[in-house]
């Protein structure tokens, strides 16, 4: 008996086009250990990844042991991930040879190479020439690595100073003949100044965020922060699901700035699922880069990353990625533009309520004392005091039952009324 293979037929097209760098899907592996050698990259391509950003080539480095640490939350491992690893410590010639082989074997996948040359024009020019000879499709400038390289005036030390960043981009643009992406560090007050400087200096695109400087924790027995390197530690780069909200905010500021909005962006920062990817794209990312999730679970996660995105696009009626890239950007506004007449109050569905009391205690101690407790043994009944409810969402957020608490619209007035108008009218 033959086994029938059911091939799913998708309507949506998830292929990406980033400055002419084409990939069958928008998922690139970020510059990191999974992309530091041929054996990994070939397996990633076989698994279905759309592209890779080859781990940063440049100065001579040597790594230490240990290198990683993480933050767990309520029994869930690696909510946040931290590393003190440097750029590629393999010989440049080996990397270049392997890049060329990967490009030859998988011509339909994006091959971008991350670079961090020594701080002089010649070094950059020489490195760019060598990389372009491999057939790679694009260059990503690593102005973001927050540890090890910064002490030498490289990595984040570049990304934190728009002037230096601009000078380096100018050197790069003198030599580069393929698309150049500047990768931004989040270890700044705002990513926009460096982003603008890079774009004005000619960078074709931006990518963000690199990792965030962190101390993930302190061992309560040895009193040494982790990761422990012979009784000492150092600030590392934080990434993984914990940093996603920070990355989304920074991405939005790039998407809303008139200078940086003109170039495509590759979004990075805690992307683990297709949902994360869709959110990055809604806020302006053309492609997304993944690292921690792949390091944790392996390349196989690409299957649902593609499948889930495809199904969602079908459901929403999007035929291509361009149909929704940037779609949510205009909805993020400044606080004073928000409609003060919009008012919602919580409603508890008593049929779904499991009487855990989490809404009650969070509202009581953490919000506005707007939930009533009616004693029962063993199950209390909780109801909303609508007149006290400010519509903050806290109860809904903590409720463990899906759709048990809903927020019901009860507008204060029909018209749109923002803060400025509210003040102009004397606060009524």
């Amino acid at each position, binding site marked *: 008996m033959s086994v029938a293979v059911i091939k799913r037929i998708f309507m949506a097209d998830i292929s990406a086009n980033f400055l002419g760098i084409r990939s069958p899907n928008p998922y690139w592996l970020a510059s990191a250990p999974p992309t530091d050698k041929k054996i990994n990259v070939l397996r990633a391509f076989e698994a279905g990844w759309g592209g890779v950003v080859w781990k940063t080539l440049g100065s001579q480095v040597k790594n230490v042991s240990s290198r990683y640490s993480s933050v767990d939350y*309520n*029994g869930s491992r690696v909510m946040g991930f931290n590393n003190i690893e440097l750029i590629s410590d393999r010989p440049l010639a080996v990397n270049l040879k392997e890049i060329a082989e990967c490009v030859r074997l998988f011509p339909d996948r994006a091959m971008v190479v991350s670079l961090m040359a020594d701080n002089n024009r010649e070094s950059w020019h020489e490195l760019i020439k060598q990389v372009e000879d491999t057939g790679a499709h694009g260059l990503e400038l690593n102005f973001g690595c927050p540890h090890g390289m910064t002490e030498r005036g490289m990595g984040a030390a570049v990304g934190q100073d728009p002037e230096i960043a601009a000078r380096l981009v100018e050197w790069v643009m003198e030599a580069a003949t393929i698309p150049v992406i500047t990768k931004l560090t989040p270890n700044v007050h705002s990513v926009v100044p460096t982003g603008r400087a890079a774009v004005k200096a000619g960078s074709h695109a931006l990518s963000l965020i690199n990792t965030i400087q962190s101390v993930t924790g302190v061992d309560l027995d040895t009193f040494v922060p982790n990761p422990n390197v012979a009784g000492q530690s150092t600030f590392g780069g934080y990434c993984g699901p914990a940093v996603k909200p920070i990355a989304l905010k920074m991405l939005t500021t790039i998407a809303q700035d008139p200078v940086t909005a003109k170039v495509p962006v590759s979004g990075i920062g805690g992307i683990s699922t297709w949902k994360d990817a869709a959110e990055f794209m809604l806020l302006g990312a053309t492609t997304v880069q993944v690292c921690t999730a792949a390091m944790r679970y392996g390349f196989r996660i690409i299957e649902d990353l593609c499948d889930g995105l495809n199904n969602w696009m079908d459901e929403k009626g999007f035929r291509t990625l361009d149909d929704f890239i940037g779609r949510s950007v205009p909805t993020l506004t400044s606080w004073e533009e928000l409609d003060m007449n919009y008012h919602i109050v919580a409603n508890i569905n008593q049929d779904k309520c*499991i*009487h*855990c*009391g*989490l809404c*009650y*205690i969070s509202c009581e101690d953490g919000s506005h004392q707007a939930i009533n*407790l009616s004693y029962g*043994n*063993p*199950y*209390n009944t909780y109801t909303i005091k609508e007149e006290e409810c400010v519509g903050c969402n806290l109860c809904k957020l903590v409720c*463990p*039952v899906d759709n048990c608490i809903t927020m019901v619209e009860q507008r204060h007035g029909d018209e749109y009324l923002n803060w400025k108008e509210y003040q102009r009218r004397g606060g009524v």
Partner: protein
Amino acid sequence: MAVQNNRLTAEEYEQRFSDIHPPFETRDAALVDANRCLFCYDAPCTKSCPTGINVPKFIKQITTDNLKGAAYTIFSSNIMGGGCAKVCPVEKLCEGACVYNLMEETAIPIARLQRYATEPAIKGQWRMFERKQRTGKKVAIIGAGPAGLSCAHALSREGVDVTIYEKEAKGGGLMTYGIAAYKVTPAFCEEEVSFITGIGGIDIRYNQELGKDILLSALQEEYDAVYLAFGVGLARQLYIPGEQLEGVVDAISFIYDIRNSGFPAVPVGDQVAVIGMGMTAIDAATQARRLGAKEVTLVYRRTQQEMPCTVAEMDIALLDGCKIIWLAAPAEIIGENGKATQLICHSVRLEEDNTGRRQPVLTDEKIVLPVDMVIKAAGQMPFEQLIYENQLHHNGGKIAVTGNGVTSINGVFAGGDCVNGGKEVVDAVQAGKEGAAAILAYLQADCHVSSSH
């Protein structure tokens, strides 16, 4: 067919009586379940615990690796929290109330987590409670069971010196002598008693029986107060012909023998009938099976709807291969040569009485069970004689109390099974706490009276 002991090898006994609810083997395993706990506010599990253990708090403490804190949270509400974690019918108490049940999801394994938190404290005999300065007051307690030990611990914490008179050679009461061996081992019971008395100020005098070795009147003279916690113990008679035949035993002494003499020493029949469907009936039936009985049949005169044991308990018996005959009322035990050979039951139907309760009504139909052993587990009787002799007010042999264990005799308090007629260990522990509070209030009032003179 014969009633005989020593049916199995040492390995078989060990295997059949090994822990039925094994502990978490690793911290990781405990944390998976501990982290599922929602940390409910005014939690239904806590409200459903007779001793009111703050369950979400101790589970949260497990998740933060504060095991000492978790143990303290448990013991400060229930000093027998270790034993209760093994013997409580949690499916009708804390776990039965877990909000996950309302989501049709598996409840948090509270008992297993409680065991995880308490076992190191008991094994290591951690000193978790300090006594207050001695008050010079002395209290006598009758019975070193859950109620007596709980009362003693609560009094000792407040600086009262306690002497417990225990008729058996070991403490623990029902926990040590009345519960299936696969739930709790004698060794654990001893450790638990030492853990409780480790606070100091508690002197247990064993082999001292009220009414024989000691008299209430003497205790009243010697001590500032007396707490009666002697439990129940006598098995209810069936009052049917043949009850005196060889092979007819009561469940209380059957289980007592298993706990006291060791598995190989206890004789069991090939075909055993157990009368009753309470927790004790289940413990007797399952242990008869595990001791090597070929067939064990539980006989109950009502239906599953009315049975006193929990479904979880019944399932243990069914998984052990015990059979259940519902709606059967024992009428007679027939014997040959003085030995039981048949149990004759009336078939029963249930009819609602005028209170709406379904009452068994005998029919003409008879059920005949070939047996060589009959274990009676149709409830326990209070120690009525003790109560009459000491002129305590009572309700059908159960000591009558007002409030928190105040009896009809000034300075004499009571709690646990001798008051409630026989409930769970955890109920007795709570009664002991309440009794101690009443005694402390009494002693304090007494102080004021003395000082005013």
